[in-house]
């Protein structure tokens, strides 16, 4: 990073830090460091830039910024300017616009229009120089569709309200109706899921959002259990159900080993193939996963998973 960029970043932080700390009189250093996403040491260096100004400023000159430091707190007073944050920089405005587009991409068309209008309004009003010329250069995938199910699930999870969903499990002859308490929305491997308590199963289950074809938010509210830990359901960049999982061994041929090595960060076998041990909670996931590679991936065991692949093939051709 260039020296100028570092100075610009520090100046940017300081012109926000001064009003932020001055408003509350004093603030804990670790709290400020967390808010700004920097180390406590970096924050101290920032504060030091203010402290050492007193060495060359005669008392009462210029804008009058006063800094006091205790062990774990900093106090800042400003009697003149720097009493508010400055306008958003173009990059900050770009970040805000892109964030709003992420929300829009998860929403139904009407809400999408509202969020796009809000993005334009905030860019125009809050930015020192608007980011509108840069926004076409940054994009996010679309998850909203016509129904905006992800946005609905997020609001239900935020407000802790149960939902009635129609869920499409692969291989079934009709959608299933479930009443769920969405604890958390999870994005993993390019898909959205909700970790939710399922009323019908009486336990936490993973629901893939693109398989929810209907949703209704109910008045009924829920509490997230104190012992609910999302870490039990995610690992290695994936989401899975922790209970009832089983180890399945899959061999990937040398022809596709590059994809697997890249994704899983593993080393190939001497013959160029890759052998992985998957923790599988939903056998249907395993079938879909293996068949997407055609004959380039093979389940080595346990035997019942080989049987499952074989039986799945029978349903593919008319």
């Amino acid at each position, binding site marked *: 990073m260039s020296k*100028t960029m570092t100075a610009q970043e520090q*100046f*940017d932080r300081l*012109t*926000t830090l001064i009003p*932020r700390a001055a408003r509350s009189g004093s603030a804990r250093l670790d709290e400020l460091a967390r808010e700004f996403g920097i180390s406590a040491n970096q924050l101290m260096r920032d504060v030091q*830039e203010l402290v050492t*100004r007193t*060495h*060359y400023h005669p008392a009462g000159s*210029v804008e009058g*910024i006063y800094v006091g430091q205790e062990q774990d707190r900093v106090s800042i007073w400003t009697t003149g*300017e720097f009493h*508010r*944050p*400055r306008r*958003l*920089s173009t*990059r*900050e405005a770009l*970040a*805000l616009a892109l964030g709003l587009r992420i*929300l829009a991409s998860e929403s139904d068309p009407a809400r999408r229009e509202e969020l796009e209008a809000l993005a334009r309004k905030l860019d*125009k*009003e809050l930015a020192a120089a608007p980011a509108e010329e*840069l926004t076409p*250069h940054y*994009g*996010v*995938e679309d998850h909203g*569709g016509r129904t905006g199910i992800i946005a609905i699930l*997020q609001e239900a999870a935020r407000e802790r309200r149960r939902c009635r969903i129609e*869920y*499409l499990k*692969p*291989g079934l*002859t009709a959608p299933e109706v479930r009443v769920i308490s969405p*604890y*958390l929305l*999870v994005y*993993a*491997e390019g898909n959205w899921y909700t970790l939710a308590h399922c009323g019908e199963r009486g336990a936490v289950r993973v629901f893939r959002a693109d398989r929810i*074809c209907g949703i209704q938010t109910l008045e009924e509210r829920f509490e997230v259990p104190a012992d609910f830990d999302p870490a039990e359901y*995610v690992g*290695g*960049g*994936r989401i899975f159900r922790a209970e009832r999982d089983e180890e399945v061994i899959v061999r990937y041929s040398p022809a596709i080993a590059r994809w697997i090595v*890249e*994704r899983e960060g593993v080393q190939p076998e001497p013959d160029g193939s890759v052998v992985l041990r998957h923790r599988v909670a939903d*056998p*249907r996931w395993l079938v*879909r996963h293996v*068949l997407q590679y055609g004959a380039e991936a093979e389940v080595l065991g346990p035997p019942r998973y080989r049987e499952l*692949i*074989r*039986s799945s*093939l*029978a349903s*593919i*051709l008319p």
Partner: protein
Amino acid sequence: MSERISKVQRWLDLVAYLIGRRIPVTVADIMENVPAYAQKWCSGDETDQASVRRTFERDKDELRELGITIETVKHPINYGLQLIDGYILTRRAYYLPELKLGAGTGSGASKWTDKNRVPGIELSEDEAQAALDALRRLMELPASPLAREARTAYVKLAFDIDPDRFAPAPVLYVEPPGTAALLAVLGQLSDAIIARKRVTFRYNGIYRGEATTRCVAPYGLFFQHGHWYLVGHDDTRDAIRIFRVARIEGLSANQRAPKTPDFEVPPDFKVDTYLDKKAWNLGDREALIRAEVLFRYPASLWAERCGHGEFVEERDDGSVVRAFELYQVDPFLRWLLSLTGDAQLLGPPELVAELQRLVAGVAALYADVDHPAAEVCDV
């Protein structure tokens, strides 16, 4: 005064001196009153004075990059008989407008005529929550190249909007392995896109299986299926190409003439044009095949929900025929295979024959299996 004054301190002093002044100040005023300039200016040495003037010009440029524009204006003196150059930085231009929570939406900044008053802008609760949510999301997006800016913007908005008033949406991004290593690369690419500077890197294309060196005019970045992608004009291929950022190594941006763009982006460029392309939609457009697929009910609802293919017809049993345009056959057939019977390929016949060969190839791997029909556990 002999204390060493840092660049950041100099900028703070300059802004503090200028901001809020109702009357433009002359360059001599600035030189005499901003300590870092005054150190040299007041020496009376012409070389020093010229040097410090150049420093001031550079400072103005660098502050402009941060969004702080010190305006140069013609200022009348001597009862309007003489015009001199003056510098001004209004509060309106510098400060974030005051964000006021209200029920109304759509009202912009109040129309203050006094440029030295900080304007206000009314936001509804819904708008305020959306703005904070948006910035939180960008901070959490894996390897987000704008995470730092999202964080500082969040702190700025939180000056007026109490974040505790709006519970965050419970959202978790599961970071794929290797995310941390991407941060620096994405930051560099984002900088190069904004500055329009060419980048050079080695690319490990998944199909080639070997690294090739590319020189690219970077046009845009997008996030899709859990990965970041770069879109740019590949000078080596003389065409626009898409690169998965995780496969980029040894990235460097052109450091020459950092303030001068290396290239122009086509005026109609939108990165969204390159989003949501399926693997079977990439490739040679002359090799187009139109395939029809029957999605059995209820998978037909899922295909509609996800926008797979184009609707052709709905049958009495709720199944739906959808059409696909293919430039590559293999990824499409493997995708159909993974749907395990929820979708049936109807045509064209040569494609069906190709699918049959694919299924036969997979079945051969499991020729030893005698007893199919394993139990499928519940969700």
